[in-house]
């Protein structure tokens, strides 16, 4: 079996080499970078960077812009995530129903936004949100609401971005949840119906427990993705108005690649990682306790 062992390493080597050099080493580098004052001068001569311990982190915690970005990111995660999963679940329930006609067609339509290019649809939605001519305000106006200055009002900019993100992403989770719904045995519903359980009772006591692990998987995945919000605010609001849509990744990008304060930017990325990890553990624990 010596030939097999050598072939195994040979086949895996190109991938491992690339993943180590383009991912694992840079991640280790990112942790180190966050402990230095690496800046634009250090790009020309790396010797100019000094080890500064946890100074970058101390500065971040005290920085109102960082706190604002952290708040905005959490806002997007805590409001946008559950909303997105709820819409996915509603769409999955409708599509999995035996009464649905053309489920395949609807499934493809609902999924289409997922494959579209985020930057392009963010550009489109920026015009849908136009306070005077945007379709959304025209529709709201038709039922006597608004107008809302979606992207110009600090209170509405983040809800606007959440709405776009829900539209863009719900099809992904929907697809996974449909597969989950199809695996719940029909007999469970029949038994519940015989016991006189109504629609809501069947949903709470058969559907939700049946989806359990998959719902958790979908929630964690959505949360991890949402923590990395960047392109939508970059294209639609540039983080404004009044920093109301500046996110952690956006701040990292600005600090690192616009002002070249790379040590500082690296500490933002590392904190993001820690927060994402904490968020995942929290969700796993909440799920366990609810059972």
């Amino acid at each position, binding site marked *: 079996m010596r030939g097999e062992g050598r072939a195994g390493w040979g086949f895996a080597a190109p991938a491992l080499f690339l993943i180590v050099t383009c991912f694992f080493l840079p991640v280790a*580098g990112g942790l180190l970078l966050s402990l230095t004052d690496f800046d634009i001068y250090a790009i020309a001569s790396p010797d100019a960077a000094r080890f500064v311990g946890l100074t970058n982190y101390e500065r971040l915690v005290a920085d109102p812009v960082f706190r604002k970005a952290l708040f905005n990111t959490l806002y997007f995660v805590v409001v946008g995530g559950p909303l997105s999963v709820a819409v996915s679940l509603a769409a999955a329930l409708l599509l999995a129903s035996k009464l649905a006609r053309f489920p395949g067609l609807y499934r493809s339509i609902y999924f289409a936004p997922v494959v579209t290019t985020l930057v*392009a649809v963010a550009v489109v939605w920026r015009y849908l949100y136009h306070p005077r001519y945007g379709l959304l305000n025209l529709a709201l106006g038709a039922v006597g609401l608004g107008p809302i200055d979606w992207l110009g009002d600090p209170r509405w900019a983040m809800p606007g971005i959440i709405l776009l993100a829900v539209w863009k992403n719900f099809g992904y989770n929907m697809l996974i949840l449909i597969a989950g719904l199809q695996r719940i045995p029909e007999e469970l519903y029949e038994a519940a119906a015989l016991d006189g359980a109504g629609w809501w009772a069947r949903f709470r006591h058969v559907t939700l427990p049946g989806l359990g692990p998959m719902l958790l998987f979908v929630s964690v995945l959505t949360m991890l993705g949402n923590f990395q919000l960047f392109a939508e605010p970059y294209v639609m609001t540039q983080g404004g108005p009044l920093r109301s849509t500046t996110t952690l990744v956006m701040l990292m990008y600005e600090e690192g690649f616009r002002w070249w304060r790379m040590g500082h930017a690296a500490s933002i990325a590392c904190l993001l990682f820690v927060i994402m990890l904490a968020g995942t553990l929290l969700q796993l624990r909440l799920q366990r306790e609810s059972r």
Partner: protein
Amino acid sequence: MSGRRAQSVALNLALAGGALLTLAPLLWMVSASFMPAGQTNTLPPRLLPDPAVTDHYRALFARLHLARAFANSTAIALTATAFSVLINGMAGFAFAKLRFAGRDRIFRLLLIGLVIPVQVGMLPLFLLFKSLGLANTLAGVVIPSCATIFGIFMVRQYALGIPDEMLDAARIDGASETRIFLSIAVPQLKPILVTLAVFTFLSTWNDFLWPLVILSDDAKYTLPVALASLSGEHVQDTELMMAGAVLTVIPVLVMFVILQRHYVRGLLAGGIKG
């Protein structure tokens, strides 16, 4: 029975309404891209162009170099797809079917990497690529997409289903491991390799943050980066920007419609087995 009928009507109306809401932004994008300049900013609003013009598409190609960005995006997505299928395909097969020293430990380490956000390594990777002369090159965009943990994982899960007897029989016949991979594994893995190809193409075509970071010269821009930069300069030109959005989105939408079976399978493989 009439209760059930009413329920069925309500449910199908909800589905149709949802479909309309989902498609509305995309339909409006296409419609507005053919409107004469300024027609999106009229009241009462127009839903269809009158008259329909192709000026904006021509302007994008003639003056604004979107053809160049289109070519860059195509080259990047196709190259990354080819390398990703080859490199992840070989590695996924090796992790599933070839016994080599340290295999399982390495695989577990790779899986840990799945929870680390790419942003943590992005700054050092930029500095590394800059020192290697890969900053502001198409290769610099392509290389990190050529091998992915998720890609290896996807192929490995599928390759676990290849019977060992098949491979051992070929070994007894004296076939080399390379030959076994090409003539036995690849035909067996074909469905998942197609899925991986679709995944890689879509994700590299749509990717934004890394190309934005690594490309500084607008002749090298990919479509999303070029579009984001155009949308800064041409905020007022709604119809022009819609034409740019159409050009960016149409290739991936067409590809999705043709290959959706493969895309959906990969998504479920990651979702259920993961």
